[in-house]
């Protein structure tokens, strides 16, 4: 007779005090039982799947080729646990990211957004996977290709689009623009304009995380994301040396989308295996288009770094769809859909509903963003100096502009 309830997941068993070591056999049998619990009798997996509950644990297999390691004593397992609720959350976030980038590009073409625009469509699984492997106690810093990471770390489509349009309801009040999004409440440090500059800064975040933790205790980690275009910079080698020397809880994330601006990795890198560039620092390369693989690889990196064993190089092999216009790698949204369908986690209709809702939500956000006002000119001078009492006022000895001596026709008119 088959049991009517699915066996506990490893995490659930741990909570109940079971020892992990004895459970390998239990895990395998749990997997077998799950397969038998699926509706049988020739039902297509593409119909409404009513048997799977929101929080039912499902094991998804990954490809062995999804991972490669360098000087790492553990291999990531080619499996990931998820549930319907969780996977659909990931899918919703990734659909929102995709629509957000498409809306940004459309607005840019209409010149409603000016300056630079670095899009993340095609890379959604990387940001989503990282966010769900870490907690908001872990610090995250990235490059100018930062809209979707802002979305993952507490941003909204409206706040992001309004910022791109330079309006006051933007997350940075119109001061930052595309390359400068931050969220202190969720430990998100931007949003940095200069290629590679975020990596030493990220190492400093890791330093602080180590310094504030009692010796021996688990540390919050810091992850900085840079691209293949930055990967050969000296400052990255410098930062990684110190991270290793001081055993900082640092993950050097490398979003390898195979093009640094217009130059392919073939032309720029004598060693294209960026996850090995840490030399003695262990490295993992993961298929950046599979959100579960990204999550598992990041979890492994976090475990290593948080335990005080030093930094990890974590390379995500990915692709940016919009600018290169070459989908040389599969779409991360499609892969997530396939996982959901092939493992009977959700139906085609449920997925489609999520995708359409994301579109509706982002379009509405775009309209609200467009309707907002530009920031007042007085905002120019806020957040530069604080006075002795910590108020947002310049100290009396700083001569600020508009003091009557300088000319500003904009003010006069």
């Amino acid at each position: 007779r088959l049991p009517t309830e699915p066996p506990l997941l490893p995490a659930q068993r741990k909570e109940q005090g079971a020892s992990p070591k004895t459970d390998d056999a239990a895990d395998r049998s749990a997997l077998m039982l799950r397969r038998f619990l699926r509706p049988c009798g020739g039902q297509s997996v593409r119909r409404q799947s009513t048997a799977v509950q929101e929080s039912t644990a499902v094991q998804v297999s990954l490809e062995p080729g999804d991972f490669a390691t360098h000087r790492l004593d553990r291999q990531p397992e080619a499996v990931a646990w998820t549930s319907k609720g969780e996977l659909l959350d990931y899918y919703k976030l990734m659909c929102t990211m995709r629509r957000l980038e498409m809306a940004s590009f459309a607005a840019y073409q209409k010149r409603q957004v000016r300056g630079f625009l670095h899009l993340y469509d095609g890379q959604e699984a990387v940001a989503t996977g990282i966010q769900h492997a870490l907690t908001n106690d872990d610090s995250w810093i990235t490059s100018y290709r930062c809209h979707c990471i802002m979305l993952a770390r507490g941003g909204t489509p409206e706040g992001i689009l309004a910022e791109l349009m330079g309006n006051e309801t933007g997350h940075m009040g119109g001061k930052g623009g595309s390359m400068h999004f931050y969220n202190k409440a969720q430990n998100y440090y931007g949003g940095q304009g200069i290629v590679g500059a975020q990596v030493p800064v990220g190492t400093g975040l890791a330093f602080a995380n180590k310094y504030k933790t009692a010796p021996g205790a688990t540390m919050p980690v810091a992850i900085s994301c840079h691209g293949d275009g930055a990967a050969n910079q000296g400052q990255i080698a410098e930062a990684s040396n110190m991270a290793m020397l001081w055993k900082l809880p640092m993950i050097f994330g490398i979003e390898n989308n195979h093009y640094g601006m217009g130059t392919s990795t073939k032309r720029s890198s004598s060693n294209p295996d960026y996850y090995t560039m840490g030399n003695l620092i262990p490295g993992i390369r993961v298929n950046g288009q599979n959100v579960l693989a990204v999550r598992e690889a990041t979890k492994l990196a976090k475990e290593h770094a948080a335990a005080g064993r030093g930094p990890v190089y974590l390379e995500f092999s990915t692709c940016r769809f919009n600018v290169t216009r070459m989908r040389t790698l599969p779409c991360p949204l499609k892969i997530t859909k396939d996982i959901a369908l092939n493992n009977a986690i959700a139906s085609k209709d449920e997925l489609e509903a999520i995708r359409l809702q994301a579109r509706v939500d982002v379009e509405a956000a775009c309209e609200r963003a467009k309707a907002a006002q530009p920031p007042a000119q007085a905002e120019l001078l806020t957040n530069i100096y604080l006075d002795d009492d910590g108020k947002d006022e310049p100290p009396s000895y700083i001569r600020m502009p508009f003091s009557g001596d300088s000319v500003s026709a904009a003010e006069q008119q």
Partner: protein
Amino acid sequence: MDPLVIFEDKASSNDGLLSSSSLETAKAEAKAVVKAAVDFAKKSEPPKPTLAKDLEYPDAPDTDYNLKPEPSEEASSSPHPVDVELVKERIAFLRSRSEDGTGLVVGDALNLAILEEMLRDPKTTIHAEDLQAGSSYDIPKLTQQSFGPLRAADEIIDEGHFIGKALGEGMNGYRPIVELMNSNFGIYGMAELSSAGNTYATTGGQFKMPLTVVGAGGTAPNQALGAEHSQPFHAYVMGIPGLKICTASSAEMAYGLAKSMIRDDGPGILFLPVKNMKDQKTPLNLDTCLPLNKCRLIHEASQKSVDSNKAVTVLTYLHGVREATTALPEILNTAGGSDIDLIELHSLKPLDMATIRTSLERTHKLIILDESTMSGGVGATVSAAVSEQLYDLLDAPVKRLAMDDAPVPYASSMEKAVVKRAVDLQLAVQQLLNYQI
């Protein structure tokens, strides 16, 4: 362990490869040589006080680069093949556009200057990010296809390293050109640029280091590139000794200045305005190298305005030139009459005080439309020099329209307050003309 002691031990063992007396003699000789050297050094005269200044530039500021000798025969033979047909075709095409009156944009004008100079002198090399794709403004277009991937090389996104690398090439007999995709990225190479400026003097004049850096950058109104892509790098490098600093906002000037700077045997940097690289076409003064130490009177105030004390000298550069030419009709049409001597500061260093003096002798009033911040900017340097050298010509304090000391914001509503523009210039002219002591 002392390596000399180790050597002595090993040499005098092994059945006397070197006898201990010969070792002693050698040591005594070395000691005597050094003592003589110390005595020589102590007795030597100090260098003349002007030596550092004399060695500032291998080529004097007023050098006429049209008179530079052609590279020698042996320099012309190179083991690296050149696709001469390809480069000559491109050169011919660009020259025909200039000759038939269509004109060239700034990016293409620089491309022409670079291709001509690379063909003329086989020692010239070029480096840029995305070089094989033409970079952002076609400045290095077809260089790699013509001259090969080593002589015209793609660079990775790391200005510190590739400016330094070019410095090495320059010291080792070559004539490197480096394009900064945006001049601000040169901040990463500040140490290298400083080193470049010091090379000739610090080496006692042994190493000429003919580095040319070109880059589009700066801050235009409504540019929306954010704080980290709007810095006035031209202001940051003003203080580097030994560096010649020029600006151009038109194709004609970019072409002529680039040719000179490439032929110059010291380091030079040519700034261009990032928003004006591809929008206006002008014909060039083909085959002419322009002086690196002269600014240019673009518009001369009428004698009538000078006589009625309604003329003002305006110094500007990069985007300011476009702003000033936009403001000019309004200034001319102002009730009561007003006019300007508009001077483009093509040479930021060395500064052309002679042209400024000639203008101030007519107008006695000066506005600097400056694309740097109030603190530490180009305008501050020029203003100080004018006050020191031309004070008696001034009827009013120098008026400086500079960027506020605030990070350049992204939103245009705030950016227009930071970056001074045509309307600010019009207002400043009126204020200066109404100035009462």
